[in-house]
């Protein structure tokens, strides 16, 4: 029996897919072939590892977003509608005038609150497209309609489409949660391309950023299975997993440095991971990977 056949038989034995005769052949090979003993032992460890792979939990709010997308209805609205569709009797008809009156009063209250909130300068209500961040340092935020505002040392809402630029020569820190902080170095420019804020849990579900230029450092403490942060540059998209890393981007190249955890790099034609203590210099044509403790082991991997 060839060693490669033995390995296939071993894999199939994990599934109880081999006959007693095949099992006997495999056992005989394991006893006599020292060449593949290590490989077969590793196959067993590999199988043990597979069995320990955890099942992922669903990101917060995903079910609601599915219903929203497919039915164009929120779960609450769906539940209300389900109630309405059930057979109703005289109570409903009897109370209809009261419903109408209640509706008018609710509308009046809504108008009052909206007007009040517009007039209140400091009011901010988080929405699906807005996240409240704590700013350390000073930055300029430019909205999609080109309206700019200066923000310094305060809590402020940040919305989808806004472009953030640190002001002056100092870096600005944008702390989105106690677990997630972005440091924008002087001269950098980051566009917030997508935000989603789960109002029920108070957590950020999705934070998609585009690093247009300069250096962005991200510090994320893993607090769930799936990172909400995705950072895109002209060359690749970076998805951290409980980590600290920095990116320096220009139009031609992105320089990635990972100091904790790991970062998955998705680029046309390949996906790879860079772990702590390593970095990668990425251009359209090549990926140069290096260790942070000097470049002795640096090696180019040309696409």
């Amino acid at each position, binding site marked *: 029996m060839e060693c490669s056949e033995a390995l296939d038989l071993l894999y199939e034995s994990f599934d109880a897919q081999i006959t007693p005769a095949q099992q006997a052949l495999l056992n005989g090979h394991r006893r006599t072939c020292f060449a593949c003993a290590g490989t077969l032992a590793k196959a067993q460890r590999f199988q043990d590892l597979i069995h320990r792979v955890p099942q992922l939990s669903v990101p917060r709010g995903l079910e609601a977003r599915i219903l929203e*997308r497919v039915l164009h209805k929120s779960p609450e609205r769906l539940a209300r509608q389900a109630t309405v569709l059930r057979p109703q009797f005289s109570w409903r008809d009897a109370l209809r005038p009261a419903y109408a009156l209640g509706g008018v009063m609710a509308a009046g209250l809504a108008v009052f609150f909206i007007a009040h909130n517009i007039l209140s300068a400091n009011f901010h209500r988080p929405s699906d497209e807005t996240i409240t961040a704590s700013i350390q340092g000073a930055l300029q935020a430019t909205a999609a309609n080109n309206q700019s505002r200066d923000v310094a040392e305060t809590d402020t809402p940040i919305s989808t489409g806004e472009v953030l630029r640190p002001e002056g020569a100092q870096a600005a820190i944008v702390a989105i949660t106690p677990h997630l902080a972005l440091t924008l170095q002087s001269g950098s420019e980051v566009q917030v391309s997508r935000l989603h804020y789960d109002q029920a849990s108070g957590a950020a579900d999705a934070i998609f950023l585009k690093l247009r230029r300069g250096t962005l450092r991200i510090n994320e403490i893993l607090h769930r299975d799936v990172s909400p942060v995705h950072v895109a540059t002209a060359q690749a998209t970076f998805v951290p997993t409980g980590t600290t890393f920095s990116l320096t981007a220009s139009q031609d190249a992105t320089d990635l440095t990972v100091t904790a955890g790991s970062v998955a790099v998705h680029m046309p034609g390949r996906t790879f991971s860079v772990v702590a203590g390593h970095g990668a210099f990425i251009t359209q044509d090549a990926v140069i990977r290096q260790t942070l403790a000097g470049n002795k082991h640096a090696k180019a991997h040309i696409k």
Partner: protein
Amino acid sequence: MFPIFLGVTIPGAVRSYHLEPVSNNLDVELMTKVANGDGEAFAELVKRYTRMLYNVAYRYNASAAEDLVQETFLRAYQHAKTFSGRSKVSSWLYRVCVNVCLTYQSRSGNPTADIDDVNEAELLVRDDERPDVMAQRGETFRALEDGLRALPSQQRMVFILRELQGLSYGEIADVLGMNEQAARTNLCRAKRRLQVWLDPLLV
């Protein structure tokens, strides 16, 4: 209630997976209602199967997992009338999800590299990492996921469905439209490649 054991239990061969609801009659009833446009039934279907499909989509493409699951349910809703009841609802949803994933892969113009192409570069990075340190940081599973995403699509999907979702070869053959032997062959190839990929961590 005492458990009833049927046949011989082979250690390591029987695993429990908790992602797939077992009450298939209820599922079929739900699908019938969904086919008639019942939003409440659809919401129940989403509640029952989001986690199962999210696990498949995430292992297939982490960065697009949420979109893939949303697209799967959208198609399931639009094509619920085509569910004939001959297969389990879970198998039907798996099939929709697999089609969504494969279509996304081909349309995005972002096919993952063959694992052999990047193996050298990856091992270069991992050479300096002590396996026990990586394991302490919980990165063993991440390394597995990285390797998984670098597999050819068919191998990756067979591995996900068999090893991570616990489907039988018959179900995999049904979901992927291949015969059972092809599913076995794909699984063996996937495992060989992944084992090479993870070699530094299997010491």
